[in-house]
């Protein structure tokens, strides 16, 4: 139940309504329906939805080493343009297990140009043949 209210609240705010107004509208509705007790659960569900939406729109560039940053940004630019994003939207992370290369993930896209992926596919080909 709280999911539905949280979803409605999120859509109201996303649609341009002031957060304070939106919360008041939802609260009034809950009072009218005798469901005021749901408010705290709606808040939790709302934060989950917001977090999920942020993850959906966020982009993560993962590198194996700090020094690869410049080259990776340059190579990833083409894909960022395709996604309608810019370098400002990027969060950079370091993952040494990648061995080398870079990996861009977010907005339902994954561009994996890491050495690890290449080596794993090489290993799979070598062991399966």
């Amino acid at each position, binding site marked *: 139940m709280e999911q539905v209210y949280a979803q409605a609240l999120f859509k109201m705010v996303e649609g341009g309504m002031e957060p304070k107004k939106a919360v008041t509208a939802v609260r009034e509705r809950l009072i009218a329906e005798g469901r005021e007790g749901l408010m705290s659960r709606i808040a939790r569900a709302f934060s989950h939805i917001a977090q*999920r939406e942020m*993850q959906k729109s966020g982009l993560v560039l993962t590198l194996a080493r700090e020094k690869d940053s410049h080259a990776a940004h340059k190579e990833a630019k083409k894909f960022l343009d395709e996604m309608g994003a810019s370098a400002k939207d990027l969060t950079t992370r370091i993952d040494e297990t990648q061995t*080398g290369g870079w990996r861009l*993930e977010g907005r*339902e896209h994954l*561009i994996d140009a890491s050495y*690890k992926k290449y*080596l794993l596919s090489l290993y799979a080909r070598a062991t399966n043949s």
Partner: protein
Amino acid sequence: MDSTTVEKILKEIEKFAPAAESEHVGRVTAVGDGVVAIDGLSKAVLSEIVMFEEGKGKKLADAMSAEAELYGLILNLEEDGVRATILGDTARVSEGMTVKSTGKILSVPSSEELLGRVVNALGEPQDGKGPFKKTTLMPVERQAAGVIYRKGVSVPLATGTKAIDAMIPIGRGQRELIIGDRGTGKTTVAIDAIINQKYEPEETRPICIYVAIGQKESKTARIAQQLREQGAMDYTIIVDAPASAPAALQYLAPFSGVAIGEYFMDKGKDVLIVYDDLSKQATAYRQLSLLLRRPPGREAYPGDVFYLHSRLLERACRLSEEKGGGSITALPIIETQEGDVSGYIPTNVISITDGQMFLVTDLFNKGIRPAIDVGISVSRVGSAAQTKAMKAVAGGIKLELAQFRELEAFMQFASDLDKATADRIESGRRMVEVLKQKNGAPIPLERQVAALYAASHAFFLDVPVGKVTEVEGLLMDFLDGQYAKTLAAIRKSGQLSEDDKKELNKAMEEFRLAHSEMFSQ
């Protein structure tokens, strides 16, 4: 490996710039009981295969030592994500895991290499005989052949069971339900039908597929062993989704089986497929549906449980000559509870199939095996496919048995019976004995015809009821030895000519003279 070589390899790797391609992905938000909720994958389609990325964050060596890739099957498309079932070990999936879209609909490998093998619901070998070399991928979900591509059922499929071939004949392309309580011999009837195909000429012999759904591994192993010993495994494929397999695989197994069958049907071959059993598949589908939060309906089954079975069984058909003339004959099995055939799943499957054979506990306990209740068993299209020889001898058996059952009930209250009634009862008793058959011993057509011809010509009337089976066996041995040509002629022509009848009459007379002590009554 010396240090310079290692250096060189490392330099090669340093220089390497892998081609980057964009993949469509989602993220696991919840996982449990074989079902995952995935955020994203907004372009995914129903029944699409997705791949779980297990290597992320793991060291290269650990990622390399991981098991084979883990896949999932999308079953629900929702507003903000999808729900999929895991086609493997649920413990390997964790929250936050990246899930890649493959753009492929679930398919299973199929080829002649699968003959004699045991595979799982994904077509992966389970018998330790190694991988398949060359296969064709067949879609697990495929639209059944349309009306204009179909042909009527007209070619018989001999099951080797006298009671079936005589009274409930099955044709190639038919769907005949085997229904009954547990322990009434449903699987035996189906397995005997598979074994009996060894008597068919190789060029027209159907490829047999046995789909074990939710069965004990020991039972499936026993069946595989039995088929191997009887030489039936050469033309048989076993698709195994045991009780220990995830519900998703039990739900998929029949579809995988028919997809493998379609490979052979498309090549113009005949296929016999046994689904053992669809009650367990329905239960697995109910489990999946409830976990996928689909609204439950009657007996908590989802609303589309009828469609689950209808779309599966519609794929069994006989194709027209333009389409190669192949066929799939389906023998689905349904287990009833306490003989209740009015349950949800039994009535669904009864209405979908072209007939059903009921196996009854009472008959089984009386020693009448196969325990088929011929009074309520029917074959709606099979009579068009029955051989003329069988039609000639089996015509009145069903009526005779029905009358016998009625009189048998009446006999319990009446002590004085007129001669006609007593004769009918005696004849009925002997007919019941003739229709009895050992399991794992299907009988070729010509021997069935000979036995039923003898029974319908009062040959056993002077034989004590308890000795009918023995006399029948001796008569068959006698015919095999002395009248092999007549039997061969019946088999070849599929007809019972006047000459054949004369020969059989002669044989029966000779046998009676030679074994007069057995006709003492």
